[in-house]
């Protein structure tokens, strides 16, 4: 019950934030919500299936570049079309990549995903005629639910319609993921995380489920990536660099991979803490590196681990 209360409070605060909070902090909510969507997906793989991808920035990149291409090359401005295309392309790329990656576990899975991530990164970096290279591509302002909104000043657009649009996408993504982890399919993923050998003898085809989880997580990351575009209005290859993959795993661990909302919390804390630290000292990596080291060594359950003292999975039935 208290969990629901906290959740309702958080949601209420998020809805009210643009009305009361300073614009600057409201703007920071946009990357937070985009990353939160991506992390819900990443954690289906990490927390629920037991696979840590070190190349998920690839899918952030796929989503963001999908939006950039559609808006600036094909002049498609509908955000719904962009998100649908990002999801579809994310799945399309993830299908073959996942089929290869899920044959391996642990460090080999991590390395293979990292290699695929770097293929994508080098591709967008080097084929600059197509992608603008390291300068990136413009992500033009998308129309939301059929309304162009071109006349609004940029900040009004972002803290107004776009803010609530992102929030709606995040809420929807959360609800869908909530269903997934509580479905029979989700239970099968947990068996694979806990003991793949045993899962296999129960007739659960481990590779197939891992592949499904991989593709779903890629779709989430691609949608999150597409949401990242409009606030900056530009998409560049650093979004797909391997350190970015490391950062999103970091966010997941920071919040707590063992809990459903842990990664969302992680994204929130990461974004705001990073902003605050950078305003105080220019060396945020030093401090974040130390935080990550501390989490790994003393609190692998992350922030959520302090709150709910229980191991990885929530019980599915009362």
């Amino acid at each position, binding site marked *: 019950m208290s969990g629901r209360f906290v959740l309702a409070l958080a949601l209420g605060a998020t809805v009210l934030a643009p009305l009361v909070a300073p614009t600057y902090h409201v703007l920071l909510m946009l990357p937070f919500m985009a990353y939160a969507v991506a992390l819900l997906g990443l954690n289906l793989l990490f927390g629920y299936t037991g696979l840590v991808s070190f190349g998920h920035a690839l899918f952030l990149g796929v989503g963001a570049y999908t939006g950039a291409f559609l808006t600036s090359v094909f002049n498609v401005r509908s955000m719904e079309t962009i998100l649908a295309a990002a999801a579809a392309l994310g799945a399309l790329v993830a299908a073959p990549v996942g089929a290869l990656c899920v044959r*391996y576990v642990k460090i*080999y899975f991590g*390395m293979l995903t990292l290699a695929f991530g770097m293929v994508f990164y080098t591709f967008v970096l080097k084929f600059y005629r197509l992608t603008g290279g390291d300068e990136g591509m413009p992500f033009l302002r998308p129309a939301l639910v059929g309304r162009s909104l071109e006349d609004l000043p940029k900040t009004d657009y972002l803290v107004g319609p776009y803010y609530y649009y992102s929030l709606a996408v995040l809420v929807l993504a959360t609800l869908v993921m909530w269903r997934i982890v509580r479905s029979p399919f989700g239970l099968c993923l947990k068996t694979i995380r806990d003991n793949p050998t045993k899962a296999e003898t129960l007739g659960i085809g481990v590779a197939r489920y891992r592949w499904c989880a991989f593709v779903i997580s890629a779709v989430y990351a691609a949608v999150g990536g597409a949401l990242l575009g409009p606030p900056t209005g530009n998409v560049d290859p650093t979004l797909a660099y391997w350190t970015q993959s*490391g950062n999103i795993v*970091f966010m997941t661990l920071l919040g707590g991979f063992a809990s459903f909302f842990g990664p969302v919390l992680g994204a929130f804390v990461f974004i705001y803490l990073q902003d605050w630290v950078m305003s105080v000292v220019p060396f945020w*990596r030093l401090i974040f*590196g130390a935080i*990550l080291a501390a989490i*790994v060594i003393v609190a692998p359950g992350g922030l959520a681990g302090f709150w709910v003292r229980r191991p990885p999975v929530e019980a599915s039935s009362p």
Partner: protein
Amino acid sequence: MTAHVVNVVLSGVFHASILFLVSAGLQVVFGVQKIFNLACGSFYALGAYVGVSAVGWYLEAGGPPALFIAPLAVAGLAVGAVGVVVERGLLRFVYDRDETFQLLLTFAIVLMMEDAIRLTWGTSPRSTSGLYLTYGRVGVLGTTVPVYNLIVIGASLAIALLIGGLLTRTAFGRIIRASADNREMAEALGVDMRRLYATVFALGTALGTLGGALVIPATVAMSEMGIELIVEAFAVVVIGGLGSMRGALVGALVVGVLRSIAISVYPELEMLLIYLIVIAVLVLRPRGLFGGPRA
């Protein structure tokens, strides 16, 4: 035409010698501690900056420029001692953890080192101006190459032989190989794991820092050089096979030379080609060209 080919190959081999040193550090640590050390690139960057500073002090102190390579190498090796601090201060706490957490801890080290370097040396690139051609150039098959490149290639080869000898012919090498094969067995036989791990990690770090120090006369030190090199070193060890020294040597040659060829023929391909090879190797031969038999 030949001159061009020779030029391309030699510059590839030069890059390969540096890559070999860093990858060898990665391999020895993975072999014994089973930790994939993402921070090996950061150690490489650290070595580069320390090398710049060491050479700077050396020249200021009036040392003859012709011998700059001595302080460079000494500094590169000495700063490897950082490895002991990192191992005792951080890594030793996670040996019994899942390898994901070990990997993330080394990622934390990458983040910290990047800023530690910026804090110490600032954000603008540093270089040892003008020392690169101290030893002049020499003609090789119709082209000329900096003598310094040949010295580094030679030094790297010598180090490869030295490590080979160390691993196969000395008591320490036998301990390393035994611990790599079976930790419990080695422990039962009375090997002091604490000391071994610290030593091995320091050795791995020193190889990385030396690589960074040696590359510096030919290039400039930048704070991003570490995170860029790690993905190349990663390609090397995957192609060669995780944990294998011969693999590091062959992998470094493959990556170094192919990259050099790609840059001269079709620059867009550069690392793309390398990663595609990495994927092919991981899919077809996950243990790499020289990895163990287990699939």
